[in-house]
C-alpha cells in the first residue's frame, strides 16, 4: 500500500478510526451532545473525503477494495443515511434514560461495515463488511434493554444472521473450490466461470440464502417484521436502508462482474425471488396495524421491485437501481423518521390507531408522512415514482413482462395499505369528553425533527419533480460500473 492507496481508502479509514476514538471518548466523558457531534462530524468528514478519494478513481486498493465511481456513489449514500440516522437517534436517545455513547460507536461501525460492502471486491472484504455490519446491528437492535420485544428482536436477528452468515461462508467456499479465486475481478476474467457446475450452483445457492436473508427477500424474510418492530425506530431505519442498500450494491457488482444473468437457472431463481417478494411482501402488509411492521413488509416488496431491475441488466438497469435506492433511502428514512421523532419514553409511536386524525391537529407532520407514503407507493411528483418509472423502464427495455405485471399487481396491493394509513391520518377523531377534539397524543417533532424531515421531504419532491441532476450523477457513477 502506498500513499495514494491510503488517500483512496480515507473514507473508510476515518469512520473506523472515529469509532475507536469515540469509544475512548465515552470512556472518560459521557456527554450525549459530544458523542452526537463527534459522530456527525466524522461522518461528514468521511463524506467530504469521498471527493478527495474520487480524484484517482478507479483504484484497486489491495485485492480487497475497489474505489471506483460506483462504490463512491454508494458509500456517499450510506454516509448520508448514517448522518440522518444519527440525527434521528440523537433525539430518540435524548428522550430516554439509557446509556447513549455506545450507540454511536455501533452506528459508526455499522456504517463502516456497510461501506466496506459497497467497496468490496473480494469474498474476504464481503464477509468482513457483512460481519462488521451484522455484529453492530445485533446490539443496536436490542438497544432498548428493558424492552422484551427489543430483546426478542435482537436475539432473533443474532441467531438468524449467524446462520445465514454460515450459509454464505459455505457458499463462498464452494464457489472458491470451483473457480479457484475469491477475487471478483479475477472471477470476471474470461473462462473462469464457463459453466454452471453442480458445485458452483450449490455455492451460488448458498450465497443467495445468505444474501437473501440480509436483503429480507421472500422466502428469507420471516425475521423482518419482528426485528423492525423490536428495534428502536432509528435502527429500524438503518436496517431498512443502509444494511440493504450496501448488500445490494455489492450484489449488483458481483452479478455484473460474473455476468451471472446469462445462466437461466440463476436468472429464473432471481425472477422467482423477485416475484415472490413483490407479492408476499405486499400481501402480508395488508392486515398489519403496526406501522413498523407495515414498513417492514413494504421494504420486502421494494427489494422485489429492485430485483426486477437487476434481472433486466444493462446500463439503464444500473441507473435504475441507483435511482431507486436513493429514492428508497430518502423515503424510508423519512417514514421511520416520523415514527422516531414522535416516539417517547413510553414506547415507539408505531400503533396505527394512535395516528387517527393527526392531519387535523398536525397538518405538516402528517403531510410529511403522507408524502413518504405516496413515495413508497410510487405516486408521481415523488422520488418513488421516478424510481419505479426507471425500474419499469429497465424491465420493459428487457421485455420482462411477467415480472412487470407482478410489479403492477404488487404496487396496487401496496397502495391499499399505504392509503389505509393516509385514511387513518385524515380520519375523523373520535370526539373526546365534552366535545373536545383530542389531538395526536404523541410528542411534537421538535426543531431537529422539523428540520430533518423538511429536508427529506424537499429531497423527495425535488427528486420527483426534477430528477435530471441525480440522473446525471448516476450516469457518471453507477452506470459506469464496468462488467
Amino acid at each position, binding site marked *: 500500500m502506498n500513499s495514494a492507496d491510503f488517500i483512496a481508502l480515507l473514507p473508510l479509514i476515518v469512520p473506523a478510526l472515529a469509532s475507536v476514538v469515540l469509544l475512548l471518548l465515552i470512556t472518560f466523558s459521557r456527554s450525549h451532545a459530544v458523542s452526537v457531534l463527534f459522530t456527525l462530524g466524522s461522518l461528514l468528514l468521511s463524506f467530504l473525503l469521498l471527493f478527495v478519494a474520487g480524484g484517482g478513481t478507479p483504484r484497486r486498493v489491495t485485492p480487497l477494495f475497489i474505489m471506483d465511481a460506483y462504490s463512491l456513489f454508494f458509500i456517499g449514500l450510506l454516509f448520508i443515511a448514517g448522518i440522518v440516522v444519527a440525527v434521528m437517534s440523537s433525539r430518540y436517545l435524548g428522550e430516554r434514560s439509557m446509556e447513549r455513547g455506545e450507540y454511536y460507536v455501533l452506528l459508526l461501525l455499522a456504517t463502516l461495515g456497510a461501506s466496506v460492502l459497497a467497496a468490496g471486491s473480494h469474498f474476504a472484504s464481503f464477509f468482513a463488511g457483512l460481519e462488521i455490519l451484522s455484529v453492530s446491528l445485533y446490539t443496536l437492535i436490542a438497544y432498548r434493554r428493558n424492552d422484551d420485544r427489543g430483546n426478542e428482536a435482537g436475539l432473533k436477528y443474532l441467531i438468524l444472521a449467524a446462520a445465514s452468515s454460515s450459509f454464505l461462508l459455505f457458499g463462498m467456499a464452494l464457489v472458491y473450490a470451483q473457480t479457484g479465486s475469491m477475487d471478483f475481478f479475477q472471477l470476471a476474467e474470461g473462462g473462469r466461470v464457463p459453466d454452471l457446475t453442480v458445485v458452483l450452483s450449490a455455492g451460488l445457492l448458498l450465497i443467495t440464502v445468505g444474501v437473501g436473508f440480509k436483503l429480507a427477500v421472500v422466502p428469507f424474510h420471516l425475521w423482518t417484521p419482528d426485528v423492525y418492530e423490536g428495534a428502536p425506530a432509528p435502527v429500524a431505519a438503518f436496517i431498512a436502508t443502509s444494511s440493504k442498500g450496501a448488500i445490494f450494491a455489492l450484489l449488483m457488482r458481483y452479478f455484473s462482474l460474473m455476468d451471472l444473468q446469462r445462466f437461466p437457472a440463476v436468472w429464473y431463481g432471481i425472477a422467482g425471488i423477485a416475484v415472490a417478494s413483490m407479492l408476499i411482501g405486499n400481501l402480508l402488509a395488508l392486515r398489519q396495524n403496526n406501522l413498523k411492521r407495515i414498513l417492514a413488509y413494504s421494504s420486502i416488496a421494494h427489494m422485489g421491485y429492485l430485483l426486477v431491475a437487476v434481472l433486466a441488466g444493462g446500463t439503464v438497469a444500473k441507473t435504475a437501481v441507483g435511482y431507486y435506492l436513493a429514492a428508497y433511502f430518502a423515503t424510508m428514512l423519512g417514514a421511520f423518521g416520523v415514527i422516531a421523532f414522535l416516539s417517547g419514553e413510553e414506547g415507539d409511536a408505531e400503533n396505527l390507531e394512535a395516528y387517527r386524525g393527526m*392531519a*387535523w391537529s398536525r*397538518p405538516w407532520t402528517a403531510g410529511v408522512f403522507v408524502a413518504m407514503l*405516496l413515495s413508497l407507493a410510487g*405516486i*408521481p*411528483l415523488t422520488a418513488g*415514482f421516478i424510481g419505479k*418509472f426507471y425500474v*419499469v*423502464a429497465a424491465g*420493459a*427495455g428487457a421485455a420482462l413482462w411477467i415480472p*412487470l405485471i407482478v*410489479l*403492477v*399487481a404488487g*404496487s*396496487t396491493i401496496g*397502495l*391499499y395499505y399505504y*392509503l*389505509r394509513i*393516509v*385514511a387513518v391520518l*385524515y*380520519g375523523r377523531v373520535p370526539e373526546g369528553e365534552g366535545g373536545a377534539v383530542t389531538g395526536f397524543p404523541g410528542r411534537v417533532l421538535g426543531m431537529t425533527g422539523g428540520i430533518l424531515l423538511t429536508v427529506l421531504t424537499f429531497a423527495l419532491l425535488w427528486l420527483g419533480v*426534477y*430528477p*435530471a441532476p441525480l*440522473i*446525471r450523477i448516476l*450516469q457518471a457513477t453507477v452506470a459506469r460500473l464496468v462488467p
Partner: protein
Amino acid sequence: MSYPILSTVIFLPLAGALVIFLIKRSNESLIKWTALVLSLLTFAVSLPLFTGFDKTTADMQFRETYQWVPSWGINYALGVDGISVLFVLLSTLLTVLCVTVSWNSIKDRTKEFFAALLLIEGSMVGVFCSLDLFLFYIFWEAMLIPMYLLIGVWGGPNRVYAAIKFFLYTLVGSLLMLIGIIVLYFNTGRSFDVLQMMTTNYPYHLQLLLFWAFFAAFAVKVPMFPVHTWLPDAHTEAPTAGSVILAGILIKMGAYGFLRFSMPILPEASREMAPLMMVLSVIGIIYGGLICLGQTDIKRLIAYSSVSHMGFVTLGIFALNIQGVQGGILQMINHGIVTGALFLSIGIIYDRTHTRQIADYGGVATVLPVYAAFFMVFTLSSIGLPGTNGFVGEFLILLGGFTASNVLGVFAATGIIIGAAYMLWLYQRVFFLDVNPKVRSYKDMNLREVLTLLPLLLLVLWIGIYPNTFLSFMDASVQHLVQRVNTAGQPQMAQQIIEVIR
C-alpha cells in the same frame, strides 16, 4: 399571446391551494373567498382559449415546450387543439361552481377542502393540455390524491371504502398504461412526444398490446362496462363538489384518452378493436340504464346514468366517423354540464334534507318551485329532448353509430328510451305525488344557488339551440383525427382484402 395561458391555468390553482394552506384555519370566510376569487380568476384566464382559438386548423395551439429531463427526452410540453380546448374551459367553469355549491355545505376542515379542490383543478387542466406522455401521466396520477382525500374525508358514511376502491381501480389501469407508455417510448426512438407518436406507424401486434394497456387506464376512468363498479360508490359517497368533478370532468379524461392517445397513436388497433368497443359501449348503455330503474338513492341513480351516458360517448368515438366522434365529444361536454348540474341540484336539496333516498321526497315541486324548474330542464336534457344539448349530442352519436352498425344503433336507441323512463320516473317520485311531510318546511333556492345553476342552464340551452358555436371548435381536429384513424396502415388492409377476395 403575451403570457403562457396554459401554464397559468394549470399553476394558478396550484398556487392558490398553497395560499389557502397558509391561511389560518379559523378564518373560514377568507378561505372561501380566496378559493372563489382564484377559481374565478382561473376561469377568466382560460377565456382567451375560447376567444383566441383558431378554428381552421387541426394543429396544436397555445403551445409551450421546455426541456425537463433531458436524459430521458422528457419535455414540459403543453398545447390544446379542438378536442381538448373545450374540456379545459369546462374544467375551469365547473370548479367555480363547485366552490359556490360547497360554500355552506362543507362545515369542517374548510381549508383543506378548498385547497384540494384547487389542486384537482390544476392537475385536471394539466391532463387535458399535456403533449408529453410522461407529463400527462404525472398529471393523470397526481389528481388521484386530492380526489381520494375529497371522497375519503368529506364523503358520506361509506367514504373510506369508496375512496380506496376508486384509487385502486384507477391505479391498476394507470400502471398498465405506464408500462404501455414506456414501451411506446422505446419504440418512438426514446421520446415521449405525443405529436411525434401521432405520426409514427407502429407494427400492428405492438399496437394491439399497447391498445389494451391504454384501454386498462382509460376504460376504468370512462368507465366502460366491465370495470365500472367503482363509479357508483365513488359518486355516491363523494361530497357534492367531488361528485360534480368526478362526473363532470374526471370520467371524461378516459374518453379523452381514447381520442388523444389510443386512436391517433394506435390507429390500426383502434380500428380493429372498434367493434368490440362499440359492443361494450352498448352493453354499458343498456345495463347502466336498467340498473338505474332499480335505484332507491338519487345520487346512485345519477351515477349509474353516467355509465349509460358514457356508453353513448364511447359508442360515438369508436364509430370512427366524423358525426360519431363529434357527437361523442359534444356529448362529453353535455354530460359534464348536465350531470354536473344534476349533482349540484342534488347537493342543494341534500343540504336541506340530508337524505338521498327517493322515498324521503315527494311533492317537492310545490314546496320549491324554482328548484323544480331547474331540475326539469336538466332532466329533459339528460333524456335528450330536442332543444336541449343532450339531443344534439345523442343525435350525432346515433347518426355515427348507425353508419357504423345498424344493429348496435338500434340497441343504443333503446337506451334513450330507458333513459327517459328512469329520469322521468325519478322526477315524478321526487317532485310530484303527495307532498312528503319531511320536505314541507324547506325554503326554495337562494341567490347563490341560483347563480350556481344558472350558467349551466344557459349552456344547456345554448348548445341545444345553436351547437355550432362548439362544434366549430372541433371540426378541423376531428376531421384530422378520423382521417388518421381510417387511413393509417391502409395499404396492408387493402392487401388483406384483396387476398380474401381471391
